[in-house]
C-alpha cells in the first residue's frame, strides 16, 4: 500500500517537486560560492603594542582575494583583532572557528600564535603562520600548523651570510663592528642569537663591543658617544623605528660617520616613520631580511593591487608584512584548490604537501618539512635609496647595486 502510494503522482508531489527544482536552479551561485571559496580568518594584532605591524599585514590581506582570484584561487576573508594580547588571541581563534572559518592565518607574534595553535589543534582547523619567529612554534608537535617564515636563528644566520656577500660584492674593507641593540625582548633575543652565531659565522670583521640601549630613552647620545669612541667600520643595529631615528640623529649630531649601518634582521630602518623623520638621512642604511622579490610576477601583481587600495601607503615599505600575509593566504587557497574540500584533516594534508614555485617572497618553492617549517625562505640585502627600500643583493633579484661606504651625512639631498 505504501509503495503504491509512493509511486502515485499527486498534485502535492508536483508542487513540491517544482519548488525543489526551482530552488536547485535558482541557487547554483550560492552553492558554488560555498563550495569554491575557502573561508579564512585572519588573526592579527591590529591594535595594541604590535598595531603598526598588524595593520600592515591587514593591508596585505585586504588586497589578497582579488589577486588570488586572478590566479584562479578563491577565498573569503574575515578579520579578528587580538589587540596584541595572548588571552584575546585564544578567544578570537575560538570565535573565528565558531563563525565558520575553515582555515586560520596569523598571528605576527609568537606567543599569540601558539595560543591560537592550541585552539586549532583541538578544533582540527589548519593554521598557516604568516609571521612569527620563535623556533618552538614548529618544535611543539602541532599537526595543524605550518609556518611560512624564518625562525629567529635562520633570520640572523641568513643575515650574517648576506653581510659577508655584501662586503665581497662591494670590495670595501670593513674590519670592525659594534653591535648596538635594544634591551627589550626582541633586542635581547637577537643579542643571545648573535653571541651564539657570530663566532661560528667566520665573518671578515670583529665585533669590538655589544652595547644595549633602552628603546624608551629620550635620546641615545650616550650610546652614540660610546660607539664613536670605538670608531667601528660597521654599526650593526637591532632597533625599532623610534630608536633607529634617535640613533641616526645622534650620529649626525656627533658627526660620526661609519662606513655602514646594517641591521641583521630587525625592523626600524624601513618603516615609513623612519623615512618621514629623517628624510635623506634615512638613505643608505642597510638591512638583511626576507623581502618581496621585485622581479616576481606575483609580487608585481600584488603591488599593482596595493596602490589603488591603499593610496596613503607604499608597497615597498609594507612589502615584508604584506608579502608574508599574502603568501599565507596563497598557501591556504592553493591547498584548498588541490584538496577540493575544507575538511580540516584533508585540507591540512594538502597544506603539508604544498609546493608553490611562483610566489612573492624571495626564496625557493614554498614547501614544508615534517615539522611544518618552510626552510626555503631566503633573505635579501635591502638598502634605502631615495627614501625607498631597494633590493641590492642577491644579484638575481636585485634592482640596484649596493652603495658602500655610505656617503657622508652632510650634503645629502
Amino acid at each position, binding site marked *: 500500500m505504501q509503495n503504491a502510494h509512493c509511486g502515485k503522482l499527486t498534485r502535492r508531489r508536483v508542487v513540491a517537486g517544482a519548488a525543489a527544482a526551482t530552488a536547485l536552479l535558482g541557487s547554483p551561485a550560492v552553492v558554488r560560492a560555498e563550495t569554491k571559496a575557502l573561508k579564512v580568518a585572519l588573526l592579527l594584532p*591590529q*591594535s*595594541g603594542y604590535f*598595531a603598526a605591524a*598588524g*595593520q600592515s599585514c*591587514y593591508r596585505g590581506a585586504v588586497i589578497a582575494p582579488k589577486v588570488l582570484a586572478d590566479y584562479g584561487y578563491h577565498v573569503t576573508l574575515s*578579520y579578528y*583583532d587580538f*589587540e596584541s594580547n*595572548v*588571552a584575546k588571541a*585564544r*578567544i578570537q581563534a*575560538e*570565535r573565528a*572557528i*565558531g563563525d565558520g572559518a575553515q582555515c586560520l592565518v596569523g598571528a605576527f607574534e*609568537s*606567543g599569540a600564535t*601558539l*595560543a591560537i*595553535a*592550541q585552539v586549532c*589543534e*583541538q*578544533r582540527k582547523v589548519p593554521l598557516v603562520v604568516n609571521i612569527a619567529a*620563535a*623556533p*618552538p612554534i614548529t*618544535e*611543539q*608537535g*602541532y*599537526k595543524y600548523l605550518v609556518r611560512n617564515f624564518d625562525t*629567529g636563528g635562520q633570520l640572523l644566520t641568513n643575515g650574517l651570510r648576506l653581510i659577508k656577500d655584501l662586503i665581497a660584492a662591494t670590495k670595501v674593507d670593513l674590519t670592525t663592528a659594534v653591535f648596538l641593540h635594544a634591551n*627589550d*625582548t*626582541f633586542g*635581547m*633575543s637577537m643579542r*643571545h642569537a648573535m653571541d651564539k652565531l657570530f663566532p661560528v659565522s667566520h665573518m671578515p670583521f670583529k665585533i669590538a663591543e655589544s652595547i644595549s640601549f633602552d628603546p624608551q630613552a629620550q635620546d641615545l647620545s650616550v650610546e652614540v658617544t660610546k660607539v664613536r669612541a670605538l670608531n667601528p667600520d660597521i654599526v650593526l643595529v637591532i632597533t625599532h623605528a623610534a630608536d633607529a631615528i634617535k640613533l641616526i640623529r645622534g650620529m649626525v649630531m656627533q658627526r660620526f660617520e661609519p662606513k655602514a649601518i646594517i641591521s641583521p634582521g630587525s625592523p626600524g630602518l624601513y618603516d615609513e616613520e623612519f623615512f618621514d623623520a629623517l628624510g635623506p638621512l634615512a638613505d643608505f642604511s642597510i638591512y638583511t631580511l626576507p623581502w618581496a622579490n621585485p622581479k616576481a610576477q606575483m609580487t608585481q601583481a600584488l603591488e599593482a593591487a596595493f596602490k589603488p587600495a591603499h593610496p596613503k601607503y607604499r608597497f615597498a615599505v609594507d612589502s615584508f608584512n604584506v608579502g608574508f600575509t599574502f603568501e599565507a593566504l596563497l598557501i591556504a587557497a592553493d591547498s584548498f584548490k588541490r584538496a577540493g574540500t575544507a575538511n580540516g584533516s584533508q585540507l591540512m594534508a594538502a597544506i603539508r604537501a604544498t609546493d608553490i614555485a611562483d610566489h612573492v617572497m624571495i626564496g625557493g618553492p614554498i614547501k614544508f618539512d615534517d615539522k611544518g617549517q618552510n626552510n626555503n625562505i631566503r633573505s635579501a640585502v635591502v638598502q634605502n635609496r631615495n627614501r625607498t627600500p631597494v633590493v641590492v643583493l642577491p644579484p638575481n633579484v636585485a634592482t640596484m647595486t649596493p652603495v658602500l661606504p655610505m656617503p657622508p651625512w652632510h650634503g645629502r639631498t
Partner: protein
Amino acid sequence: MIELWRSIGWRGQVPLAIALFALICAPVIADRYLLSVLTLILYLAYVGQAWNLMMGYAGQLSLGHALYVGLGGYVAALLWLDFGVGPWLSVFPAIAVGALFGAAIGWLGFRFHIEGVYFALLTIAFAEFTRIACDNLAFTGGSAGLFMPYVEKLAGEWWNLRGGQLLFYYLALLLAAAAIVLTAHLAHSRLGYYWLAVREDERAARTLGINSFRAKMTAVLISSGMTAVGGVFYAFYYNTLFPSQVFDTNQSIELILAPLIGGLGTVFGPIVGAFLLTPVGETLTTLAERLGVNLPGTKQVFYGLTLMVIITLRPTGVWPWMARVLGFGNRAS
C-alpha cells in the same frame, strides 16, 4: 560559611544559587567561544579577588601584581618541563615562591614605612627587575620565552592540566568560587577586621593593640600566594610564558580592573567587575567589526570611555550599588 550563607538572606541566596547553577551548566548551551570568554572572566575574577584582599581589605596598593602570576607560571612550567612535576604538585612551590617574593616586598615596605604610592612603586620595581632577570636567565628561556610542548598522547590528562576548554573552564570556576569563599571567610574573621582597621587608620589600629605589620604581611602573603596559583593556571592554559608579557605593567593593570570596577573591599566586587569588563570589551570588538571600523585603537578609546562612565557613575564600584538595589544583606556586600 553557613552563617555567612544565612546572613545574606533569601534575596541574596536565590540569585547566587541561580548564578552558580547557570555557570555550572553553561557548557551545555555555550559554544567554545563563549566558554573561552567565561574562562577569562573567571580567571580575572580570581586574580582580581587575590588583589582585592591586599588592596580592598588591607589597603596596600600593589601595581605589580603580575609579578606573582609570572612567578607562579614560571615555577610550575619549569617543574613540569625539567622534572615532569604535574601542576597539582607544583602549585605548592609556586605558592611558596610567590609568597616569598610577597614577603620580601612586604618586609621592605612595612619595615621601612614605604607607604601609599611609594609602596606601589616598590611593587612595580619588583615586577620589572624580575622581568629583566627572566629576560636574561637561560633556564627560564630568556626573552625568547618558555614553551610548554604539545604532546598528543597527554591530551586529555586532566590531572596534568592537559585538557581542552571544558577542563580549564571548570578549573577557573572552581578557583573563582574558592576565592569568593576564602574572601568571605577572611573578611568576617578577626584578621579581616584587623585589615579593615589598618586600612582605615593604621595609627589608631596600632593604638588598639593590633599588630599592623603582621596584619599587612599576612594580607600580602595570602594575596601573592593566591595570585601565584593564577599563574599556574595561566601557564598551563596558554602554554607560553614571555617575560615581557607576564610581568608587564599592563598585565598588572588588567588584573586590578575587575575589583576596581566591581567594588574594592567587597566579596562579590571582583567577580561582578570581571563579568562587566570582559563582555564590554567583547561587545565593543563585535560592534567595531559590524560597523566596519578598522581604525587602530578605536575600541580601546571606547573601552576607556566606558570605564570612565562606570567609575563616574559608581565611584565605589558597581557591586555595592547592585547589592543595595537588589536588597541584599549588608554582609553580602
